[in-house]
């Protein structure tokens, strides 16, 4: 979801949403059942994610699949984003995951945080 509004920091190109998400191969019914099942004196059964997706895409090593009976292809494909040399790009990072915090960085480039959920923030470059 993109809401356009006044900006305090100018940019050249808006590359749009970059969705970061943990990803589970198990059916969600089975994950929820684990999470809400009573386990006296024990913490809830927390699922372990199988992968992490960027814009709904990532590669997976099918040899590590828990259920080898499921159809699986290696190198399904990574998300690609087009950048132009010398331009300032706006990235709209969204954590669409269920559990984990997400860390995001771009090798060899500065990233400046300019906004959080349509709220202006004190600008910081990391």
């Amino acid at each position, binding site marked *: *979801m993109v809401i*356009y509004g006044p900006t305090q920091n100018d940019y050249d190109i808006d590359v*749009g949403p970059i*969705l970061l998400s943990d990803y589970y191969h198990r059916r969600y019914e089975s994950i929820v059942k684990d999470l809400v099942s009573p386990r006296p004196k024990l913490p809830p059964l927390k699922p372990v994610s199988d992968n992490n997706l960027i814009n709904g895409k*990532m590669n997976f090593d099918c040899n590590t*699949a828990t259920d080898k009976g499921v*159809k699986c292809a290696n190198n399904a494909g990574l998300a690609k984003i087009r950048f132009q040399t010398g331009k300032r790009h706006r990235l709209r990072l969204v954590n669409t995951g269920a559990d984990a915090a997400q860390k995001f960085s771009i090798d060899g480039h500065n990233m400046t945080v300019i906004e959080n959920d349509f*709220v202006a923030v004190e600008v910081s470059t990391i």
Partner: protein
Amino acid sequence: MGLISAVINTLAITSSLDQLLTNGASSLGLLSSSTLPKYLTNNPLPDGYPWGKHNCTNTNPYKQEVDTGVTRTYDFTISRRVLSPDGYEKNLILVNGQFPGPTIQANWGDTIVVKVTNNISSPLEGTSIHWHGFLQHNSQWMDGTPGKYCFYQFDPI
């Protein structure tokens, strides 16, 4: 060695599956995916901007809402289908045949309307949509109440 690593690098960025098999009708994550504008312009532009002279220092979302009078309406059809986002085949819930779902776009001060059609089958299943990141001021009942509404309307503040 250089040739081998070049081949491996090429393999790593080459997709073995077509976008239709990994993400359905979504074009996110493709180089052909379009960039976004600075704001939507199919609307009045008082003082050059959809939201006029409003900015984050002269407005307070708790007291005074910016209202452009513009409504953005989206139709979402929810369905279940087999896709392989990372190569591992599984049942996914899709919006308009897409995983991830479509991007809603609006200007500050617009009203967003989303008409949701539940087309989930095999098996049938109820659905509701929760909208992250909004105050839902005066529209608390639009924040993902299951069952009652198949229609969501709220202001993006």
